[in-house]
């Protein structure tokens, strides 16, 4: 840099000297510290999430012998696509799961599946009502939309820090981080789906004297179902992508194996674990899409 420019640069730089460094980070930190006063709340949440993940989903999945599990899921896939006349999905489910079992990732698969299902379940329980509320109230939409933008654009790693702060390490902060990261599509698409219901149908429902509840359950939700399901599908995919990142804070499952493999530069392990995640992702994606009633009555 030429000297003359450097002196001009410094002069301009000096203009900002009066401004102190804004301690944004430490503000947030003290806010998080302050929130810890309500540790009993987080402990409660922690035990609920732990219960759903390990005691409900995981224990149930572990009860089932792998071969029965594989056949059952194949059967479900077959039942779903039977009417459409294409049998790719059950074949994919059967051989995909068989491959995971043969490379010894079955236990990790079950845990990852439990994590994803728990995160998705929580996302739906919070996200769908929130989306409905947004659709009915423009003020709520104006407030929630930037929060959702924030949740989605913040690098996913960042969520690990408060998750650990409140929920320690292990499975639970992994689920929490997944929920934060994965919930926005469900909220957004529930809102969108309800807002997209043609005005005439809303008017028809009102003109025949429906209550707000009847309008919601008999017209808006059925009409928005396809869109909401698309949102849930997205949520599942995002939750799955979060489980690898959550491995950094001690969340077990296939993600952990990927994380180890990266650390050790172990190509064989990385590929096996990676392909297991891909298989799980494809199965979950196709299953939820096939469930979507878009193409039938």
């Amino acid at each position, binding site marked *: 840099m030429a000297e003359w420019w450097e002196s001009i640069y410094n002069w301009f730089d000096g203009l900002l000297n009066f401004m102190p460094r804004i301690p944004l980070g430490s503000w947030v930190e003290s806010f998080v510290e302050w929130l810890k006063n309500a540790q009993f709340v987080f402990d409660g949440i922690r035990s609920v999430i732990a219960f759903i993940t390990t005691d409900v989903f995981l224990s149930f999945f572990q009860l089932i012998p792998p071969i029965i599990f594989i056949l059952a899921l194949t059967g479900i896939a077959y039942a779903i696509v039977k009417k459409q006349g294409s049998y790719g999905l059950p074949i994919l489910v059967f051989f995909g799961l068989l491959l995971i079992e043969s490379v010894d990732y079955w236990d990790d698969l079950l845990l990852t599946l439990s994590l994803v299902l728990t995160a998705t379940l929580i996302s739906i329980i919070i996200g769908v009502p929130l989306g409905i509320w947004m659709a009915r109230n423009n003020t709520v939409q104006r407030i929630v939309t930037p929060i959702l933008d924030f949740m989605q654009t913040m690098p996913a790693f960042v969520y690990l820090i408060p998750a650990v702060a409140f929920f320690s390490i292990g499975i639970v902060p992994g689920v929490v981080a997944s929920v934060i990261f994965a919930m926005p599509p469900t909220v957004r698409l529930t809102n969108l789906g309800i807002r997209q219901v043609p005005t*005439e149908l809303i*008017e*028809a429902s009102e003109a*025949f*004297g429906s*209550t707000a509840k009847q309008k919601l359950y*008999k017209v808006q939700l059925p009409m928005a179902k396809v869109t909401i399901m698309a949102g849930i599908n997205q949520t599942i995919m995002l939750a799955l992508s979060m489980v690898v990142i959550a491995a950094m804070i001690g969340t077990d499952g296939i993600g952990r194996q990927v994380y180890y493999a990266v650390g050790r530069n172990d190509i064989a392990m990385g590929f096996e674990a990676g392909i297991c995640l891909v298989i799980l992702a494809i199965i979950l994606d196709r299953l939820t899409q096939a469930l979507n009633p878009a193409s039938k009555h």
Partner: protein
Amino acid sequence: MAKIKVEGLTKIFGKKPSQGMKLLKEGKSKDEILAETGLTVGVNQASFEVDDAEVFVIMGLSGSGKSTLVRLLNRLIEPTDGKVWIDNEDLAQMDEKQLRKVRREKMSMVFQKFGLFPFRTILSNVEYGLEVQGIDEKKRHEKAMESLELVGLKGYEHQYPDQLSGGMQQRVGLARALANDPSVLLMDEAFSALDPLIRKDMQDELLDLQEKMQKTIIFITHDLDEALRIGDRITIMKDGAIVQIGTPEEILTNPADDYVERFVEDVDRSKVFTAENIMVRPATVTLEKDGPRVALQRMKDEKISSVFVVKRNKELVGIVHADEVSKAVKENAKDLGPLVHADVPTVELETPMHDLFHAISTSPVPLAVIDKDRRLKGIIIRSTVLSALSGNEVTDNG
């Protein structure tokens, strides 16, 4: 007693509508208010009454506020000001529960794009209004089936809306509106989305149904022909305000202003005028007193080749032709009686002009217009039909 009475009903869209209301009352126009305050006047102080079992058509171009007006009547849109009485109850004052009761029991609505629920079967669509009332399933099915039968869709109850044609879908819409047996039917451009032939069928069918059911129907349309076909009375709207209310004939013969006149200019007059409107005064001879000579003289005077014969009380007897009469005069006959041809083409006073075309084109003699007692009221000749069609002059009742 009026079934529906509307007084000063106004809708202003935008923030702070009360400001616009004040300006409206000062007599400012829709455009002035928009320029001054940014508020849009949807409906401007509309007042009218609709009688029981009347078909009341509200007509206007798009943007004239007609669809807003009909939605103010069942409060799908909340009025800014004004009153709506239905059976002497003020709808605008009702709380939600009372309003729901009115919507469930007294008035239902048919929509332009049908407004059917795509995920429900036809039967379950028709049942919707009953379902939200909590009526039990068996009774619901029964009523819905009756309603479907009424519109001629029995057998389609387990299909879905997208499996039906547009005309059939709107029948479903109509069946759904009729299922809870309302006394008021609001129809918002109900047939506008249908192609012309189907639309005409639906209009006929609505009129047939109306004859049986005697509902109070408020029908929105932008199509004047449709309005004239089905309306007992027609309201014409412009810029949210009512310009004219009247029977189809009043609107056509006596348009309130340029706007209405331009509206009715290109109407198919043949659908509106009846024989009574276009008939002319006939030349006649009286059977009891006039003989062949008088008849011949009259034909010469009028420069016509045949003349109608009536009794003293004007009852139509028939027609005599110049050639036969002059022959009788040469033979010195005194009585017209044997010369009269009784098989004269006749039409009634109320016969629409549309139906006169065929009769007049195949008949060698003018058409006799008679009343219920067969009294001759006038005649119709080709030139009168043509001049009425061109809209030039309509003679007064001969």
